[in-house]
């Protein structure tokens, strides 16, 4: 069974329907990129996947034993966060909260999971540093480690490269691809078409009144990809 399956999903934002009758499936191990213009409903879809937004109609089903609260989410950063006094380990271990219920303190097992993910993302040397002293790319890696603490199966990344310089962006994409190869399913919302198409196995493209879902190879042959590259090109030239 698919990890996530939506059927005729309709979502609205402030009484406006932004997504209508969307159906797509995410299998274990997939790397799905969600691309589309501003206002095409990408953020609303993310909220729906996380269970923070009720669909108007249709349903989102989770398979393979995935629970909705076990999605490793990497949200867009807020300004308040950038100068937050918290050590890297404090931030990473807070990813384990979804499995704790009301117990007040972290267990040894959760400390191990956090330590593992700190190691996995190459943050060992930074683990006692303060989050606010890190560069943008390092901060994203910390948040990625936190997301991995919350899940074994699926990470959901919302514009993870916003504000990063090209070198750091490329590194982060490589890192995400490596995580994907280790068996974690990736869903990534992004503006960055080029890189999205380079890494993603599947593409979901949302526009104001149309959508496309299929493998990335299929997407590149469809009319929709032309449309999007045109839009991007003209935006850059203008």
């Amino acid at each position: 069974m698919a990890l996530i399956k939506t059927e005729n999903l309709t979502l609205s934002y402030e009484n406006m329907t932004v997504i209508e009758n969307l159906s797509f499936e995410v299998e274990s191990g997939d790397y799905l990129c969600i691309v589309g213009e501003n206002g095409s409903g990408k953020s609303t879809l993310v909220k729906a996947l996380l269970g923070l937004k009720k669909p108007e109609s249709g349903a989102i089903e989770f398979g393979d034993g995935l629970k909705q609260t076990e999605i490793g989410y990497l949200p867009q950063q807020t300004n308040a966060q950038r100068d937050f006094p918290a050590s890297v380990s404090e931030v990473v271990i807070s990813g384990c909260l979804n499995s704790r219920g009301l117990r007040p303190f972290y267990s040894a097992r959760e400390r191990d999971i956090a330590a593992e993910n700190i190691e996995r993302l190459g943050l060992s040397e930074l683990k006692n540093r303060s989050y606010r002293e890190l560069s943008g790319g390092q901060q994203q890696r910390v948040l990625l480690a936190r997301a991995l603490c919350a899940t074994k199966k699926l990470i959901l990344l919302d514009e993870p490269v916003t504000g990063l310089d090209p070198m750091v962006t490329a590194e982060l994409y490589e890192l995400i691809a490596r995580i994907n190869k280790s068996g974690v399913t990736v869903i990534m919302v992004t503006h960055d078409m080029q890189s999205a198409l380079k890494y993603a196995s599947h593409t979901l493209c949302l526009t104001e009144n149309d959508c496309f879902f299929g493998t990335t190879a299929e997407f590149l042959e469809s009319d929709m990809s032309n449309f999007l590259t045109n839009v991007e090109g003209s935006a850059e030239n203008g």
Partner: protein
Amino acid sequence: MGEILREMFSAPILVRALIVGILVSLCAALLGVSLVLKRYSMIGDGLSHVGFGALAVAAVMNLAPMAVAIPVVILAAFLLLRLSSNSKIKGDSAIALISTGALAVGVMAVSMSHGMNIDLNSYLFGSIISVSRGDVVISVILALAVLLMFVFFYTKIFAITFDESFAKATGINVNLYNMLIALLTAVTIVIGMRLMGSMLISSLIIFPALSSMRVFKSFKSVTICSAVISVATFIIGMFISYAADTPCGASIVCVNIAAFAVFFIAGTVASRNKR
């Protein structure tokens, strides 16, 4: 100095003020770290003005001050929280609206009560004489509740302070914890207001958190340090107030200003040495 301390501890009024003050300082500092980081510091200020209004009205109507003020301020806290998450009315103007409004109502109530013995000055700037035995009992109970809840929910409070969207996604009931923080803040403010004055009580929430953030870098160390700063500045402030015969609320805030200056310099020096 020993002489003055012995004198202080032999006066029951001062002992009561010390007990209430230390507990309130502790609670305010713990909640303050979260409020300051969530950019909610002005909520504390707004609530203290609402508290002033409620106390003044209660005094004029001859009702028990705490019994009126605590529920009113809790209600205001929930309202302010809703308003700040509502994009139609911006949080900061909503707070200004409510706090000046409540202040005006309070001043009107006091001015209409001719012949009544209400000391506006002690409401606005605090006085240790206003701490009654009942206040001590209430503050001990409430302070213990705040401390227990803070320790018990510490990991969740960290998560929702650092990143509400992530916390929501992991299934934490963010609204519930925000309301819990607002509730505890409201209670802390009402208890502390008699001693510190409604104009000055929010300094107990803001100063220690900001001072410790200059120097410390993890959430845990910032929290612990704020608690220590808060209690220490309170005790030093009380001592100065007694020794120099100055108002206690203002003395405590002045000690906090000094502490902030020290931590600011220490933080600047430390980060310069690193480079």
